């Protein structure tokens, strides 16, 4: 086993941190939350120039064949900087969908994404999907689509949507692509917890030509599932990045905040809290390393078990770190003025997308056969 980063990986991580320290800040974040401008053209261009758009994708598709671990370094740096620039939502997720569809049409779209020519968002979930991607009431019938998708990231700022739906005739799942501008596509959006925007998209007799249908049948479900699994690991990385920053800032605060004539870090209970955070962070990081490696294996049950165990663990431990960071700060921790409360929201947000703890616990049990055993015991 080797847990060391290669020199390329060190450079990648350092350059991501450097880019963020020079181009992002808490003030920029404060302007960004809730605004209609989540995709900032200047920073988008810089991320493109840094090669981030191509990193997650294979060389055949015009990418740089970065590993899941490589990409996680970027997600982690973004999380550490509290950046809500939607790299994962609007580059990696739609891009991975296109890559996993793996057809000449999808590849052509992917090229436009990697080149920064066009922007995309993924429309996977219905409002009542909870976390089950298989469930959708967006229906294609006689070349016409009707239905509604929810939780579409920054829909007001992208050119195209890649949408998960099904055919009326035989219930087959499909993935199709459509321009947001197209007639028959309407959306409403609102701010969500991390400060970015999310939309509800309604298809009202949208006419869909065959060239817009990217994938049909179990391949469509598999592509969507794999793409979501991939970004789930990145969200775990972002959670750890954010938790690292929250921990470090809290440790710093405990050394300077004085009450009762001494710094609060001298109280044993505060020391133990901080030690718990420190230790949990190591554990969470270990899970991330595990998931970036095992999450990329071919065997679906194995990779999903790895990814779900990581997310399930982090939803508990990293959320607890964020809560503790607030508690140690006292009153200032619950204000909009200080970044600590924002890290807490950022982490909570990530803990609730693409599967929460319950969802990933069940999936872990299914993929490892634990569920069967429980049934067997109950029957006995």
């Amino acid at each position, binding site marked *: 086993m080797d847990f060391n980063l290669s020199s390329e990986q060190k450079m990648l991580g350092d350059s991501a941190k450097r880019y963020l320290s020079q181009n992002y800040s808490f003030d920029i974040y404060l302007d960004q939350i809730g605004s209609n401008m989540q995709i900032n053209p200047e920073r988008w261009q810089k991320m493109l120039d840094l090669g981030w758009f191509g990193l997650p994708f294979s060389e055949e598709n015009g990418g740089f064949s970065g590993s899941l671990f490589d990409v996680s370094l970027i997600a982690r740096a973004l999380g550490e900087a509290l950046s809500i620039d939607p790299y994962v939502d609007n580059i990696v997720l739609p891009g991975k969908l296109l890559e996993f569809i793996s057809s000449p049409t999808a590849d052509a779209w992917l090229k436009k994404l990697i080149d920064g020519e066009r922007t995309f968002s993924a429309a996977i979930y219905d409002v009542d999907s909870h976390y089950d991607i298989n469930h959708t009431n967006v229906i294609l019938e006689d070349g016409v689509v009707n239905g509604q998708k929810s939780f579409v990231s920054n829909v007001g700022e992208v050119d195209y949507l890649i949408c998960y739906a099904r055919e009326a005739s035989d219930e087959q799942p499909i993935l199709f692509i459509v321009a947001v501008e197209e007639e028959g596509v309407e959306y409403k959006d609102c701010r969500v*917890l991390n400060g970015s925007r999310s939309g509800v998209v309604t298809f009202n007799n949208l006419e869909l030509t065959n060239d817009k249908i990217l994938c049909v049948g179990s391949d469509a479900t598999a592509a969507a599932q794999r793409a979501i699994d991939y970004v789930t690991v990145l969200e775990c990385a972002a959670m750890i990045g954010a938790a690292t920053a929250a921990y470090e800032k809290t440790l710093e605060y405990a050394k300077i905040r004085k009450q009762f004539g001494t710094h609060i870090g001298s109280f044993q209970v505060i020391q133990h809290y901080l030690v718990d955070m420190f230790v949990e962070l190591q554990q969470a990081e270990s899970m991330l390393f595990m998931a970036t490696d095992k999450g990329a294996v071919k065997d679906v049950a194995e990779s999903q078990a790895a990814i779900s165990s990581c997310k399930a663990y982090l939803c508990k431990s990293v959320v607890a770190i964020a809560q503790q960071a607030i508690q140690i700060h006292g009153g200032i921790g619950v204000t909009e003025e200080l970044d600590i409360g924002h890290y807490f929201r950022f982490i909570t947000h990530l803990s*609730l997308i693409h599967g929460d703890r319950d969802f990933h616990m069940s999936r872990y049990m299914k993929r490892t056969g634990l569920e069967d055993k429980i049934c067997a015991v109950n029957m006995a």
Partner: protein
Amino acid sequence: MNLEFSDTEKEFQKDVQSWLSDNVPADIQEKTQNGEMLDKTLQQKWEQILGSKGWLATTWPKQYGGPGWNATQRYIFDVERAKAGAPGTSPFGVSMVGPVIFNFANQEQKDRWLPGIVSGDTLWCQGYSEPNAGSDLASLKTSAKKEGDEYIVNGQKIWTTQAHWADMIFCLVRTDSTVKKQQGISFLLIDMNTPGIEVRAIHSIDGHHHLNEVYFNDVRVPVENLVGQEGMGWTIAKFLLTHERTTIAGVADTKQEIERLKHALKNTRSGSGVRWDDPQARRRVAELEIDLMALEYTNFRTVASTDNGNPLGPESSGLKIKGTELQQQVSQAIVELGGPLSLAWDNKEAIGNMEFNKATRRYNFLRACTIYGGTNEIQKNVIAKMLLGL
């Protein structure tokens, strides 16, 4: 042991239910049931409705305009109130400064301030904490210097809830800096309209404005506004801390939150069914109900002992700690069980279910409940020292 309400208590419960069903305004009910915050107008409207019925200052003795209820009656009222979708009342007048006034103030002061509190007409806020005096409250620096028949107040308070609504603020101020810290503190009532007071908003992570900084710049306060004697402020503050233990656990509202969670789960579509079909969700509800039960019966014990005139027993000491922890757990469960629906922040139309859409703000705000009113770490320090003798 008898763990049932008596017949008279059941009768009382019915009266309360029927009054509430006729008197909680629909707009207030709707907002409260959605978990939304009330603005000043609605909050005060509800408090004035209670005030005109004589049910606002529920802990007060009859002679000062309270209903003269015992702790069990107060508990019953509180549970029914929450069930009816009515908000809790602002604590600053009724639960804090009111009891200070009728325990420590002179007759003139009682006549002057109590009626406005009982009726809900005067809104109060609490000026204790300062930037460098949070947990270590006795280090407060805001000074009050006597000049003739006035105090001249200078300094800054922070985290002052509802200072932007309030007509009056009760403050701990330093009147003597030559004696031991605790002994130089006095309890002063200040009209928020006095020149020299400036209120600046602080926004909380639920996106709302509850908190403020309050600056005092040569603020002139008549000496008649001093409660008790100079130097008695710390004694009064300590009295206040131990005064009200029967509602501090927040049992009634937490109970209602769990009901709201069940309602939301049953009314949120998920796949071909509803969220309630998920056994993990129901198990989580069961866990919360059991935790609540432990708190509720501990609370009953406290209530029963004070009704019998006994001093508060050790069982009451953990109420604030357990109560606030449970408030946080329930709000976290609502957010987590709503899943993606809980991410919505400022939508006007429901996304899936408005109860889940609104849950996140409350979850965010409630991170503060283990901080305000003395942090849970400080509560534990106090219990360790006072009760366990450590």
